[in-house]
């Protein structure tokens, strides 16, 4: 379970403090699939980072009683001089996971071949994305946080990712934020709209979409 109790976040800008999230109350239960719809700049990424504990809220409390992934980015910020393998070892050490098991998985899944042991700066954009996705699947979490589903690689690889995340990990919780109603319809069961820093729950995705459109 992740619980946000009356959470707010504001950033200091040159024109004073700007509030991004206000009074957010949200519970993410075991294997619950939550979709949050919001426009660019609605505070979606900030909300995901607060859920994941990457950022601290300005006020309110966050409780986490299950393991939560980092906000999965399908492009990934990599240090160019490190190899794919170095990055994997780093992630494993940080999360206390077994390096050999993870290596077998990532080598197989990412299809990088010999490039896995070459510096990331020699990778194409598609190869980086494949590495980033494979790394985020190498560590098991109870809840995955996803900031927009970006299609990785070609159709076949895209299907593989879909299978790995949404089929094999059906029993896990998921929080997906997006500005695309279709993604949320496809993967979620509980629907929210984030608008002007406030969050609102809807019974079905069409109602949510209607509200989202009206407040655009």
């Amino acid at each position, binding site marked *: 379970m992740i619980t946000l109790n009356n959470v707010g976040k504001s950033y200091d800008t040159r024109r004073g403090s700007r509030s991004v999230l206000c009074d957010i109350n949200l519970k993410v239960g075991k294997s619950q699939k939550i979709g949050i719809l919001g426009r660019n700049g609605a505070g979606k990424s900030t909300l995901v980072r607060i859920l994941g504990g990457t950022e601290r809220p300005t006020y309110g409390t966050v409780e986490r009683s299950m393991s939560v992934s980092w906000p999965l*980015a399908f492009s990934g910020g990599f240090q160019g001089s490190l190899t794919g393998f170095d990055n994997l070892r780093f992630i494993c*050490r940080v999360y206390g996971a077994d390096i050999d098991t993870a290596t077998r998985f990532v080598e197989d899944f990412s299809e990088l071949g010999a490039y896995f042991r070459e510096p990331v700066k020699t990778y194409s954009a598609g190869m980086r994305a494949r590495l980033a996705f494979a790394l985020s699947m190498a560590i098991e979490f109870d809840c995955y946080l996803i900031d927009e589903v970006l299609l990785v690689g070609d159709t076949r690889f895209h299907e593989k990712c879909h299978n790995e995340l949404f089929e094999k990990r059906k029993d896990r919780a998921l929080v997906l934020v997006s500005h695309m109603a279709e993604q949320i319809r496809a993967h979620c069961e509980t629907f929210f709209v984030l608008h002007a820093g406030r969050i609102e729950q809807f019974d079905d995705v069409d109602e949510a979409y209607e509200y989202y459109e009206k407040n655009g």
Partner: protein
Amino acid sequence: MEARHSTSLTRSLAIQSRVIGALLMREIITRYGRHNIGFMWLFAEPMLFTLAIVGLWTASRATHGSNIPIVAFAVTGYSSILLWRNSALRCTKAIVPNLSLLVHRNITVLDVFVARILLEVAGGIMSFIILSTAFIALGWMAMPVDVFKIVQALLLLSWFALSLSLIIGAITELSEVLDRFWHPTVYILFPLSGAVFMVDWLPKDLQSYVLWLPMVHGVEMLRSGYFGPGVVTHYSVSYQMLMNFVLLLIGLFLVDKAGRQVIPE
């Protein structure tokens, strides 16, 4: 006002040391690479610098109003500067290149700094040990008199390096202006830090001012350990410890402040 953590202290410590270990390994690879002599640069770099200074001083026959052995004087002085100067330097603007790592909840700004400081301090101490051993073997330097005191002095200086570097790392993150101020400050501190003089050579009234600087005590203690009672030194272990502690508290406070401002990529 806080994110609530239900993690126990011992578990937190275990996570923290795992994270710092991972960052250390990463730093070693990104800084020194796999090619050439790689990780050897950790001590080869300071070694080259010390050799250059020894060379210059020997060539110019610089007499410092004392018959102190110049090689040992340079090695002890420069090594002690290396400890705090390099680690502070490696902490300036250290957050931006590591922003993408901060998406991992368990990696904090403090961990990033501590990993870099540990690496620099280890490099500085290693270079001191290797250089001293090499010079002693060559007969350029005498054997140290009190190894235990040397170890204590190095620990105190490393602690000072940690405290100072946390402050500098946080400050350069919090303010562009203070970042600009730090660089000239280093140049002023360099000659004042006790590395290029013995406190006893200074006039009495100047001595009391110089002894306000915490690292002067560490350097004097290091030399007292190296040269023994034959050389007059002025230092206070309790003053160095008190300053280290106060600076550490300020450093931790500022790092926490900086950590709240950082927005991970």
